[in-house]
């Protein structure tokens, strides 16, 4: 499946286990907003995989991918 940006959508960004909102990241990566920001360009779309407890690129993927429900 292809997403709005023309990329294969089996990626962390569309997985139900992935979280990458700036507000969420600033709450779990303690100190992030002290000398950086969840809204910074350097972060790109990186986020947290709740399943594997990793902080990684939104373009990653794995065998445990589960497509997120719309609106969730």
């Amino acid at each position, binding site marked *: 499946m292809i*997403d709005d940006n023309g990329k294969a959508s089996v990626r962390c960004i569309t997985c139900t286990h992935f*979280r990458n909102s700036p507000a969420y990241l600033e709450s779990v990566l303690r*100190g992030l*907003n002290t000398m950086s920001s969840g*809204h*910074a360009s350097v972060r790109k779309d990186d986020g947290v995989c*709740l399943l*594997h407890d990793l902080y990684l690129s*939104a373009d990653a993927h794995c065998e445990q991918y589960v497509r997120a429900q719309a609106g969730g």
Partner: protein
Amino acid sequence: MASTNGASKKESGAANVSSMGWKELYLKEDWWAIYLGLGIILVAFLFFVSGSSIKWIAVTPAKWHTLDQAIGYFGDHIGQYLAQFIMWSVVFTISLRVLGFKFGEFFPSFLFVYIFSIIIFMIGQWDQASHYNLEPPLLALALGLIISNFIGLPKWMDAGFRVEYYIKAGIVLLGATLPFTLIVWAGPVAVVQATIVSITTFTVIYFVSLKMGLDRRLAATLGAGGAVCGVSGAIAIAGAVGAKKEHAPIAITMVIIWAIVMIFFLPLVSRAIGLHTGVAGAWIGTSEFADAAGFAAAQAYGNMAGAATGIPGTPDDAVFGFTLMKVIGRDIWIGIWAFLFALIATTRWERRPHTKPNPAEIWWRFPKFVIGFFLASVFITIVAAGYSQADFNKIVKPELVSPIKNLRTWAFIFCFFSIGLTTRFRELAAAGMKPFWAFTSGVFVNVILGFVLSTIVFAGYWSSLSH
């Protein structure tokens, strides 16, 4: 598709966002810093070419000797401060609303920041302030640390304590005061010096970490934090290598602690040995860990220059030296570091899940606010080219450049105060002794090597910035 601040039922405040792509033009604060900074510069220019100036709204406290003078001056200009507050509130509110912050949280918080910023700025204008080391950057940081760690403020007020946004906007405004010719002249030297220190520091931290048995992803994250770009460097590399969730907070803790130490250590040591402000600025640029902290240190030291202290150089030399070293020498390369480590992680390390690194990462992770910085510098350099040096100093500087510089100073004070307000030591992640010593080993190397390169090898450049 969830909004940036929508909440899932599983975690409060947690939500996915779609892949950003070019939506980052309005969803990343770097771009808003460009719009804000270049917008101010453009408005300032339009006023200038129409025979006017924005200096009325770019008001700053005047030098004073007695408290009555300070209060009197403030009272005489209270309308200007009010107008300036409204200006800042409007521009920040618009951008931060788009980024997902609530006006009801940002506005009162920013009012708090602005009121204290006036007080901090005014104290710094006391004619005895330098004698007591009451430099606004240091004072702002210290006051913020006291408030956040001993008094406490509600968490929602973080909406107004946007350290990175303020410093990025300030850096774009700084571009308007830094001639592009200086960037061309000293930029290559900054890149060479910064590269030597960055690679050396990273190597030390990385291999000491491995020697201590730390995970190589943590080692890389610590190394990036200490060598490249502080917290931003740490999170960029952490994401690129697929680090464990706890690795980034560990590196963030190390960066914050040492960055705050260096805000005080570097200027005070520089003062003790009477370093030229440009040389000290370059040293701070190699040995500080974050832009915000580094500007605090550089501006604090620059303010100490003058006949009374015997410190050679100008305040601008310190800030320019730091900017060249940190922004051009280190920040702009973060995308390359991230791409290289993504490549190493996927081709040499085994990890899950797998990512195919794309060279486009270099662009997407590029700290875009630097584009605004360059554009501002080019723009003002072109404007200045139409004037003789004498006319530039007589006309352009007071009517166009100085007001922009004043607004930059305000943005920096907002930033320095916010650093203190958001540094809650009890809330920082526990790092453990091994990451501490691995990172600290890099700090020692960084500080010493940066000192040697700045004060000996390339001193000629850094002490000649004004020329």
